[in-house]
């Protein structure tokens, strides 16, 4: 990892420091992004400082990677280079919360937990609850959640990032500041670029501020858990629930490496309303709890493991699980642990096994993906797996996506190589 020529340039450091009131420095070993060394680190305090930084980067053709709290920075492909790491850690302010409008405006570096704490006294929340690495209880920052389109159990009832984000401020590769959307929920003026940035993995612009629609916190929530011996029965119960009048807030599955699957059904609302709905499922054996099962807030793999994102049509779940088990069995790997929003069709899976096994499981799953109507993405993996497996798999509309990238970042300096097709 030889530093680039300009890494030694005092002028660069001066320019970066001028942009951020001195909060810029040379990169250190621990700043590396997926093993890619970082030349410079800068910590802007607001959108204007990000714009100043990106202007310097544009003048000097530097590649740029944005970092929130680093929760999912290691996911996706490694960037081809990372001359400048823009740390948004100091951009952690909730800029406006108008409770009567159920809308919040926050800087991109705001941690999701901090945002929720600010909103809780008003009995409101941002209905985004992406799972954390086991035991870590880290959900990431506003910007990181948008960039990775991370969602959790509440996706079923409240939608994902794309459905909750109503306004966004970004800094483009050329250093210009742009906004899209606004501070009202209902708004069809102009292109909704917030959706374009959602799940763009830092490759189109640096997200600096976001506005979200909020929801009231339900007075009462209960979790009903069901133990299910096999995928067919899990599917039958899922179908029963989604076509019922239960209005589940969430419907999560946990299929561990060994043993039966568990389904967790979250019912939220008024006390009377929730009790009445619990009574409707009294004939099915369930445990009722006032708190969610711990697993529903955690990813089914630990850092360093192989983590997949699997999407499926709702009825495709049993086929997906069967194909997954077949693929791991053929590869001689242990059964994968699967978790996620079965009522949405968005799951995570943790694979164990060596690089050859992981590669073979992913390849076989992609071959069979049409059978359950979904896709397979490798989110997280050790370096050797990353190097040998196509993380994103086949992508429809890739040439159009390349044209979008070329427009927003013609020199391919923003998180280069991190996204689909080497974008």
């Amino acid at each position: 990892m030889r530093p680039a020529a300009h890494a030694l340039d005092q002028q660069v450091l001066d320019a970066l420091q001028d942009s951020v009131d001195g909060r810029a420095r040379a990169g250190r070993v621990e700043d590396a992004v997926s093993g890619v060394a970082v030349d410079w680190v800068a910590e802007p305090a607001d959108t204007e400082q990000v714009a100043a930084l990106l202007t310097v980067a544009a003048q000097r053709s530097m590649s740029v990677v944005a970092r929130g709290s680093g929760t999912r920075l290691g996911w996706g492909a490694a960037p081809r280079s990372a001359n400048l790491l823009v740390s948004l850690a100091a951009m952690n302010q909730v800029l406006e919360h108008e409770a009567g409008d159920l809308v919040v405006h926050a800087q991109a570096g705001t941690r999701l937990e901090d945002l929720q704490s600010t909103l809780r006294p008003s009995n409101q929340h941002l209905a985004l609850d992406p799972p954390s690495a086991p035991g870590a209880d880290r959900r990431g920052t506003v910007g990181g959640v948008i960039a990775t389109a991370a969602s959790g159990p509440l996706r079923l009832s409240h939608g994902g990032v794309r459905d909750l984000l109503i306004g966004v401020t970004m800094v483009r590769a050329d250093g210009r500041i742009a906004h899209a959307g606004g501070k009202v929920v209902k708004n069809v003026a102009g292109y909704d670029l917030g959706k374009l940035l959602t799940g763009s993995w830092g490759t189109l612009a640096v997200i600096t501020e976001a506005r979200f629609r909020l929801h009231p916190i339900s007075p009462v929530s209960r979790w009903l858990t069901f133990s299910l011996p096999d995928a067919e029965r899990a599917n039958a119960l899922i179908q029963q629930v989604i076509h019922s009048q239960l209005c589940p807030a969430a419907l999560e599955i946990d299929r561990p490496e060994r043993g039966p699957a568990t389904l967790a059904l979250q019912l939220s609302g008024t006390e009377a309303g929730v009790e009445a709905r619990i009574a409707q499922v009294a004939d099915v054996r369930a445990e009722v709890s006032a708190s969610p099962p711990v697993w529903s807030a955690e990813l089914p793999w630990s850092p360093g493991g192989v983590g997949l994102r699997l999407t499926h049509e709702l009825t495709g779940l049993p086929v997906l699980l069967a194909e997954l088990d077949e693929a791991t069995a053929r590869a001689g790997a242990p059964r994968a642990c699967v978790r996620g929003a079965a009522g949405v069709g968005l799951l995570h899976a943790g694979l164990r096994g060596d690089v050859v096994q992981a590669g073979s499981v992913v390849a076989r799953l992609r071959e069979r993906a049409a059978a359950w109507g979904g896709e397979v993405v490798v989110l997280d993996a050790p370096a050797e797996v990353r190097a040998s497996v196509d993380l994103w798999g086949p992508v429809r509309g890739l040439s159009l996506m390349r044209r979008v990238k070329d427009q927003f970042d013609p020199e391919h300096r923003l998180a280069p190589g991190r996204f689909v097709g080497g974008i």
Partner: protein
Amino acid sequence: MTTIASRRAADLLDLAAQVRAAVGDSAVIDDRQRLRTYECDGLAQYKVIPALVVLARSSDDVQAVVRLCARRGVPFVARGSGTGLSGGALPHADGVLIVTSQLRKILALDIANQRAVLQPGVINLHVSQAAADAGYYYAPDPSSQQVCSIGGNLAENSGGAHCLKYGFTVNHVTGAEVITPDGERVQFGGKAPDPTGYDLLGVLVGSEGTLGVATEITVRLTRSPQAVRTLLAAFDNTDEAGAATSQIIGAGVIPAAIEMMDALAIEAAEAAVHCNYPAGAGAVLIVELDGPEAEVGAQFDVVERFCREHGAFEIRVAADDVERALFWKGRKSAFAAVGRISPDYIVQDGVVPRTALPHVLRRITELADDAGIRVANVFHAGDGNLHPLVLFDDSVDGEAERAEEVSGAILELCIEHGGSITGEHGVGSDKAKFMPRMFTEDDLDTMQMLRCAFDPDGIANPGKVFPTPRLCGEVPGRHRGAHPLVQAGLAEAF
């Protein structure tokens, strides 16, 4: 310029011949009288007769026409039922109007997966009707849902009264087959969520026909609620009704809909559809709750109490679907109904933060009084989406201009309060000139970067949404003199 014009005429003749060969004679209209049928959409004040109309009968037809247009740089405009209220489907005089209203097959109703696959010309309400027996419906419900098409809904990101709780078209479209402006057929998404790559579907919805034409659309079906309860409350004035709305939302209740009408709007609705709203009301509120029975029951009591606390002098509860329909009839017919009390009117569509509603309504009254113009207010109170109806008489000298001024001032008011110039009708031809008031030059330039990726030649619905086209590949920044596209006669500046 004559040479350019005559060359264009020759080009169009040539194109017409090729289009006929591709889609068949019967699908092509070039007779001046018949073309006139398509000169406007729901916003009849703008009229342009297209050079050619194609009544597409398949996705292949759409692709063939777009390809031919792309090859020659000829503009095309897609049109569904033509009910849009911002001139989004206004034809281009030198372009092709691609009408998708004959593509009205429901290709699949996949209840188990809660999806429907639709051709773009399918009427919004027909989807709900088709899914009703299975206990499902399609949630976005624009007031024109009996006639508007799903393709048009996708282009405009249509909302409706119930989007307060259920969201807009974009929250319910999970997949689309699209013919992009270069004539390629691309599939975005499908029945599963979160397709890999950029969320191009997310930006396509609501792009007002400027990024392509959807030829097959996959939508989410929503379980029909177990219980629906609708209440109509009469207040002395809009302030009281607004305060009740704020308290309902503030208490953590998200109704399926909260709609408000003021005295003038009520008067119009009475004259038109005899909805028999409470006499003497200065404002009525329609609040609808839906969901599980016990949940709706508990919330309904809260809503009723808040309405009384804020001065509701009469509260009616719909006993059945017939009464509910009558409550809604007054509201949903309000736009057309003002025709009974005024010879001419402008339908405005703006949004303000809910908390700014009382202030903004007072300002609208002042603006109207100052101009000597009447304004009837109908709006989605729950999400701050105003539909002021600015009434005027075109036969009175200067009144149309004053009405236009009031209408424009209302939009300025929305922008001033951090709102939007359109909540659901779209920018289209009508509001492109207001875009620079809401967005900076860099904002608009950034949006146009997306357009350039899809449509570098600017042939998909040119002149809509953006006040000035962007030459793709140019260095962003200010231009001097006439814009090159304007010079070339390819676009009009607003």
